[in-house]
């Protein structure tokens, strides 16, 4: 082989020769994610790995070499294995459990119901996806975006609609980052100034025994009702038991720091790398993004309206803004509740109250994922 032939052969394998317009668009989107994360601090722990993963995943692979995320045996394929098999999401839940304090929820059990009300976003979006022509399994995977929980969305998409995993994951995480933009207008639209000014009593002190018993009992309830949720719920409550038992501090500390960070890096990078233009830039992805925004809006409205409905029966009123935190997206939606509440009354602290439906929302969306998986998975 002459030098010229070798050079020509090499040039034909370079990224420049094989880059498509779609790859360029996806690389631009990846860079936009990185810029948003760095300059606007929008979910930087997720958007930086996802953004860089998108850049890496859209460099055209050489046909004869195992390089791309979908090429069996490639390094990226091994990283993506944890995403495509739904391994990373439960591990993330372990870390989330080890950092979650359920005290506010335990001190005010009626706020748990707001975590259920907000899950209506999942099921209304499922209907919307069916209406737009998706099949039942795909519609279930798209609907879970309304749970505002990235790991849950990835877990269910991996089980029900692997082809849509990239679009669903990106939509879920993008909208989670946009919670401070999406939620406030809906919260203000559905509440009066008087309602936004409602103050809630300071939550009672919760004993350590309650905190220890809760993860075991709640796991049994959830797992027996929806066995499909055992991987997510089991790891969430296992992590929480490590934290609350007070005898496994080392394990809890590892789970909520180094462990969750490692899994987040692998998950974010793997999801980003899976967004190859050829599989990602499709009309379906655009529909999924539209449905994702719709599901967040419906979930927020569901939580707020759920709180207003409960107020019809309660003597001690709930500030309906707190209902918006039922969409999970921990702790961003709780922070949004605090922010919107303080715009009306700077001395009204709603954060601790909002954390109750917020963590209940995590449980609710994991149960919903378990139900949808068991109902919609092909035999």
């Amino acid at each position, binding site marked *: 082989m002459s030098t010229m032939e070798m050079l020509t052969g090499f040039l034909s394998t370079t990224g420049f020769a094989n880059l498509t317009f779609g790859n360029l668009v996806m690389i631009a989107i990846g860079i936009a994610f990185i810029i948003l994360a760095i300059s606007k601090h929008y979910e930087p722990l997720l958007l930086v790995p996802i953004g860089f993963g998108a850049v890496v995943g859209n460099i055209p692979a050489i046909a004869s070499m195992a390089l791309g995320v979908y090429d069996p045996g490639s390094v990226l394929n091994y990283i993506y294995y944890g995403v495509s098999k739904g391994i990373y999401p439960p591990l993330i839940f372990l870390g989330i459990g080890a950092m979650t304090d359920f005290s506010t929820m335990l001190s005010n059990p009626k706020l*748990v119901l707001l975590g259920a009300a907000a899950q209506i976003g999942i099921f209304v979006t*499922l209907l919307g996806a069916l*209406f737009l*022509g998706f099949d039942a399994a795909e*519609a279930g995977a798209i609907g879970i975006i309304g749970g505002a929980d990235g790991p849950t969305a990835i877990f269910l998409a991996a089980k029900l609609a692997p082809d849509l995993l990239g679009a669903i994951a990106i939509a879920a995480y993008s909208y989670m980052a946009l919670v401070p933009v999406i939620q406030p207008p809906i919260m203000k639209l559905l509440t009066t100034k008087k309602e936004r000014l409602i103050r809630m009593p300071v939550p009672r002190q919760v004993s350590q025994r309650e905190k220890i018993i809760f993860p075991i*009992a709640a796991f049994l309830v959830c797992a027996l*009702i*929806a066995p499909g949720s055992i991987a997510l719920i089991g790891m969430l409550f296992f992590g929480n038991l490590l934290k609350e038992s007070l005898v496994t501090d080392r394990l809890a500390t590892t789970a909520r720091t180094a462990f969750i960070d490692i899994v987040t890096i692998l998950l974010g990078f793997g999801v980003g790398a899976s967004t190859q233009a050829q599989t990602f830039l499709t009309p379906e992805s655009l529909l999924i993004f539209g449905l994702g925004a719709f599901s967040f809006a419906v979930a927020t409205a569901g939580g707020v309206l759920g709180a207003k409905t409960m107020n019809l029966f309660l003597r001690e009123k709930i500030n309906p803004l707190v209902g918006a935190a039922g969409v999970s997206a921990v702790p961003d939606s709780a922070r949004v509740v605090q922010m919107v509440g303080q715009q009306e009354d700077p001395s009204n602290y709603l954060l601790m109250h909002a954390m109750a439906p917020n963590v209940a929302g995590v449980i609710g969306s994991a149960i*919903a994922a378990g139900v949808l998986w068991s109902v919609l998975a092909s035999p």
Partner: protein
Amino acid sequence: MMAALADGIDNITVNGGIGIAVTGMLIVIVALVIISIFIAVLPRVLAALDRLLGRSATTHPKPDEAAIVAAIGAALHHERQRGR
């Protein structure tokens, strides 16, 4: 337009969309209502259990002995300094 609308509604019906949505939402609500009731009842059950077993209802954290010794030592030192 009307055909697309009919197709969409047809797809929901064929896939049993309404049934899945209603059942799914009900299961989530039932699970969280049970958890909510459990949380509400738990402190009372624990208090009743404590009464039954003749234990104090409030559990005090185990005292930090090193801190107590340090505090006693500091108090003694302070007292002796004053006595001089």
